[in-house]
């Protein structure tokens, strides 16, 4: 069913999710509901519950985690510099753009001719890393963030689509990513992970949220990702987007998922599931009863205590990537 009333749809979604969260029980501590948590809670609830406060919390910046944040920030900085100079932005050179942004963080007083540099968590981490003389980490950031930027621009094309606004990046060429709390006192924050918005937000909807995935192998199903970002975006913005554009660096795909009631409902389900599992975890801790075994069992810290996971592994151990693992040759002869 299509969304005829984007504002009303978002409003109804807010009530629905707030009701679901209220009915989920009381989680211990703050709950940050991003795509990562939603994917983990949906993939195997016991495994997600078992992570505990340490696993649920933001682990701190590292090059792999900072790839998107630094790539977006550098691209926003590149575009802002061109805007300030009154010219259209040239095709960014990924590594140069990353290094230029890093330099501007370090020397804001020398950037009078450039755009103002806004404080950000990831920017502060870059500065601390620089001051610590950790050149290996800075080089790793340049590598992964440059790869993010290159993939984003390659798949979306250059010049970037008209009316594209980068989200979740510091700087004047970007705006914060949409986030939402059921109420001011709620420990729950739902965060949209969209990288960009195409089009302006009006009551008529019509805008598109773009999500870029560097690789698709570990990101779950495309429809699930689109559903989560559609719902999180509608909650945060207060208007349902018209569609979600999901791009992938490794496959070069650009897939548009139209936002309809079913997609929003699936996204709402994913969001509420995170809070539900956190509440269950507060009461029960790890309980493998509802485990959903998958290839993730191979790397799961809790498989030894998980009968469904062990049962799955007894079969899976004989297979790898669609091929049987060979027995010793003597036994096969």
């Amino acid at each position: 069913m299509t969304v005829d009333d984007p504002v009303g749809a978002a409003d109804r979604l807010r009530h629905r999710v707030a009701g679901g969260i209220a009915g989920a029980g009381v989680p211990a501590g703050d709950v940050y509901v991003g795509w990562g948590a939603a994917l983990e809670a949906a993939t195997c609830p016991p495994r997600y519950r078992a992570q505990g406060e340490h696993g649920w919390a933001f682990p701190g910046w590292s090059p792999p985690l900072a790839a998107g944040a630094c790539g977006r920030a550098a691209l926003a900085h590149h575009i802002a510099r061109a805007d300030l100079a009154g010219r259209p932005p040239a095709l960014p050179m990924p590594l140069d753009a990353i290094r230029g942004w890093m330099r501007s963080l370090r020397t804001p007083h020398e950037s009078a001719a450039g755009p103002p540099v806004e404080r950000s968590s990831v920017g502060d981490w870059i500065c601390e890393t620089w001051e610590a003389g950790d050149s290996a980490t800075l080089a790793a950031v340049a590598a992964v963030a440059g790869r993010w930027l290159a993939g984003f621009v390659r798949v979306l094309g250059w010049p970037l689509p008209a009316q594209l606004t980068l989200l979740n990046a510091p700087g004047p060429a970007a705006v914060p990513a949409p986030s939402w709390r059921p109420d001011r006192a709620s420990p729950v924050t739902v965060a949209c992970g969209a990288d960009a918005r195409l089009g302006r937000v009006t009551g008529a909807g019509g805008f598109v949220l773009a999500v870029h995935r560097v690789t698709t192998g570990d990101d779950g199903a495309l429809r699930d990702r689109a559903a989560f970002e559609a719902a999180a975006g509608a909650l945060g913005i207060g208007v349902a987007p018209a569609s979600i554009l999901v791009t992938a660096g490794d496959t070069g795909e650009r897939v548009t998922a139209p936002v309809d009631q079913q997609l929003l409902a699936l996204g709402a389900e994913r969001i509420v599931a995170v809070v539900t599992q956190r509440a269950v975890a507060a009461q029960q801790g790890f309980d493998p009863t509802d485990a959903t075994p998958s290839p993730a069992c191979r790397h799961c810290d809790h498989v030894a205590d998980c009968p469904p996971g062990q049962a799955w592994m007894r079969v899976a151990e004989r297979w790898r990537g669609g091929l049987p693992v060979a027995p010793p040759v003597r036994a096969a002869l």
Partner: protein
Amino acid sequence: MVEALGDVLAGPLHPPSPDGIAALRAELDDAARASTVVGGWSADEPLRLSKHLVTGLLRCPRRALGEDQGTSDEIIVGWVVDAAAKLATVSPRRTITVDVAVAFLTALGDSTVADHLADLGSAAARLKAEAAMRIDRLAAAGLAGIDPGWWPRVEDPVRVALGGGAVTVAGRMDVLLGGPPTGRPGVILEVKGGRWYDGMRADGHLYALMVALRDGEVPASAVTIVSDGTSHVERIRPALLQHAAERLDEAMGIAARLAAGEPPAMHPGAHCQHCPVRPDCPVGRAWRPGTAEDAS
């Protein structure tokens, strides 16, 4: 004259026409569907191929299906050299040492090498000296100081889904230069930590095919840079793409028969010398007997 990376980038470069890409994809999709009928894969549980597995299945299925043997000193040295090459690409001003390359790997979230060296204790010195020697040989390969207009990016991921997703072929190119939207033709760089042998070319061919399928443009060159000082330049031609597609087709067929229960064939060859399953493989042992263990 032996070509090097600098010669390639100086041009001129003439990538093949993209006209044949759609036909190649159609051929591979058909082959994947035919293999899937036998192999029983699905989009949810696909056959996952990599460059190593494609080569392995064609070379010796028995070895390709063997359990993961973990890391060896030779593999660790190769990873250090590989990291040094990538670091030279993204950070050209630095003198690349073994310690810096290991720190780069660790910063990227992979502590396997650092842990292995730590476990070796003082014995790590020999390994590090070997890695340092190979890194020195790489220095002349021209990885540092590449014009930013080439968009140098390391570990660029590429994935191709075939037969409706029942077969996936995935990998990460060591270094990718050019390609859309740079306006320059694509150049694939593969870094190898050991010694040159002709079989290394196949990785570049497969990546050229995968990049063509992903980007809709055929890369102009695949350059294999080896830590023995070899730089092998391959101008990509339609025949090479066709050859890579035929290898992929054959690998899917072998994989299908294995998944259906056919015992893995054992093909002896030079690869037996370093094969981890050789002690259990009578064919491999017979190919080059001579050690005490082989005679037992």
